[in-house]
């Protein structure tokens, strides 16, 4: 495992300045990519799966000789900052990235952090890839944030529509944690469901983030007997318990969420009761994963002991940054070039079989291309693994 030392970052700084001076260098110069997110405390799982996918990918690149952008081959270094899910710390983290001369940052993981770092990112010319859904982050005049995944107001309608057509779903109930991100996602989900003509039978019930027993929470929701129960913005820790409680209370309908989940966590926490649970994932199901995806999973597992399925969607941000820089090397220290490149950028998606493309989308949601086109893979959990339910595209 890589541990940064002061010495090493000093060396990297020297390398960078040497490169800037245009002198030839025997060793690869280093390209630093930042990560600002939560890697400790209750929500650690979100940030750690981000950070580890970036580190696993960077180690892979460096081991195979580096990443060539323009005429230079770089070693990739990931600089991570733990914001402890505190927006005040997130600002400090973004300032630190600016200080390190970093222009491309992945994170933060939550709404409040993403909103708080915006002034810093815009003042210092940093493009950042948050995992937060508020539209105003990506809609003009904001221009430095790129949504790093599929938003729930995009995946939700696709899932509901699919279930209406194939499973005959007519009524839907929502339940969310009493916290900014899940509540916003619930509101988005309710709006989407109503637009599709679904009857929303319950959407008021919320639970505290620290709830450990969901039976009393779920009882009134299930009394409305919905065909579909949506767990809005559910954290991977709560999902298995919610599913288990719902099933033990005798609920027979479908359960879905619009966030990424981990198969092993579901298996340990809910076992067979989780069968049929619908969630959004990346491209690691056997039908879709390319050799590159399988190698990534293998390298991740070797490096950190176990894989986290949340990384299926989180592997993409770094890939997008590097590929876009490759498309126009001038973007390396000039985000305006990067932004211009985004409009036309297109490259093959290495992690998925077939001819899927990496490109920026978001015109219909944000009025500008400020979202990475992650394949919208809707999974269904079955006996410990995810199976692909359907694949859709976001525009």
């Amino acid at each position, binding site marked *: 495992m890589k*541990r*940064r*030392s*002061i010495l090493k*970052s000093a060396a990297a700084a020297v390398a960078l300045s040497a490169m800037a001076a245009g002198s030839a260098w025997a060793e690869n110069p280093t390209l630093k990519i930042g990560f600002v997110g939560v*890697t*400790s405390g209750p929500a650690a799982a979100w940030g750690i799966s981000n950070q580890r996918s970036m580190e696993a990918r960077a180690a892979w690149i460096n081991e195979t000789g580096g990443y060539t952008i323009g005429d230079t081959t770089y070693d990739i270094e990931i600089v*991570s*900052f*733990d914001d*402890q*899910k*505190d*927006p*005040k710390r997130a*600002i*400090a983290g973004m*300032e*630190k990235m*600016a*200080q390190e001369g970093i222009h491309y940052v992945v994170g933060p993981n*939550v*709404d*409040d952090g993403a*909103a*708080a770092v*915006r*002034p*810093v990112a815009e*003042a210092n010319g940093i493009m950042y890839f948050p995992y937060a859904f*508020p539209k*105003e982050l990506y809609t003009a005049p904001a221009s430095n944030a790129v949504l790093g995944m599929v938003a729930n107001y995009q995946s939700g309608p696709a899932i509901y529509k699919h279930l209406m057509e194939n499973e005959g779903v007519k009524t839907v109930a929502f339940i969310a944690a*009493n*916290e*900014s*991100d899940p*509540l*916003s996602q619930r*509101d988005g989900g309710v709006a989407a469901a109503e637009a599709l003509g679904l009857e929303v039978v319950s959407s008021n019930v919320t639970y505290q983030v620290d709830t450990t027993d969901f039976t009393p929470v779920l009882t009134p929701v299930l009394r409305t007997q919905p065909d579909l129960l949506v767990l809005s913005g559910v954290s991977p820790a709560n999902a298995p318990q919610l599913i288990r409680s719902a099933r033990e209370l005798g609920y027979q309908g479908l359960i879905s969420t619009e966030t990424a989940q981990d198969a092993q966590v579901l298996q340990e926490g809910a076992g067979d009761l989780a069968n049929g649970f619908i969630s959004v994932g990346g491209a690691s199901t056997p039908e879709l994963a390319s050799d590159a995806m399988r190698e990534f999973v293998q390298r991740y597992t070797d490096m950190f002991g176990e894989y986290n399925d949340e990384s299926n969607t989180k592997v993409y941000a770094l890939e997008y940054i590097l590929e876009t820089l490759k498309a126009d090397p001038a973007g390396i220290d000039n985000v305006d070039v990067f932004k211009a490149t985004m409009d036309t950028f297109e490259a093959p998606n290495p992690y998925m079989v077939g001819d899927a493309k990496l490109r920026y989308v978001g015109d219909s949601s944000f009025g500008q291309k400020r979202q990475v086109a992650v394949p919208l893979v809707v999974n269904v959990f079955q006996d410990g693994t995810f199976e692909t339910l359907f694949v859709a595209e976001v525009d």
Partner: protein
Amino acid sequence: MLKLSAIQWTGLAVFFLAIFVGVPMMIAATGRTDLFFTLTSVGLLAIASAGVWLTFYIGRINIGQGAFALLGAYVSAILVTKAGMSFWLSLPLAGLFAAFVAVLIGLPILRLRGVYFAMITLVLTQVFTLTALALPITNGAKGITSIPLPGELSILGITLIPDFSTLENPRQAFYFTTAVLMVLTYAALYRIVNSRLGHLCRSMQQNEELASSIGVNISYIRVLIFAISSFFGGIGGAVFGSIAQSVYPSSFQVADSVNFMLNCFLGGLGYVFGPMLGTLVLYFGWDLLFELGKYQMLIYSSLLIFLMLVLPNGLLSLRLPKKGGQDK
């Protein structure tokens, strides 16, 4: 007027030089502009911690400062975005509103002592977070975003403070704002501690019944102190909201309330400047350990435990006698 010894005057002069001249020069020389925000954070958190320290002074463990910081942040944000008020006017109003709410809440709960008061204030932080999530005026879960930077402050056409959005480096402007606010806060704190009020507080800290029996109006004093404390919290929170240009229900939460209290413990409860030093060490300590990656939290908490073992009465218990802070 205050009577300070020569050595205290010197200390004060050095401190002023350091924060108003030394720090900006050092940052300019090293190019570490990220330190502006880090130090601004320290200053703002130190302002809120000063309030917590003041409630300690009347023998109350306050784990509710996060609530008032959140309140201040929201009041300022709402006044600026919805009423179009100048930030500079909303700032004192945020503090005053926090103080007003503190009076209402303080009247019943200040009768509690010891861990009971500590716990009820802890619950208070959660109550404020949940209220912010439920109310329409706070925009609920979506928070208030895109708050404009502080505008120009001018009196009779003379610009006292320029519009922050026209500045080349608003971070630096926030730093100076915070530095001034922090100096004012601690001057006020020092003044209170060395006044008759401070004397009464100390007698309450020792024994409320006794203080009451010799004619001290204890319920008036503790509400007054709690209001001043919350005023500081509101100010700190309001400036934070302006820097982040956004306020969410989670902007200040229980963890912040606990941290404010820890700042006071770490600095030392017997010293006016304790919370300032405590905040600096706790906040900066985390930042300095940034290089340790995944061991950051482990080392940070180990150091905290070790510090407590060595200096159970706070960092300032190390100090040379008669310098800087004020003991009883």
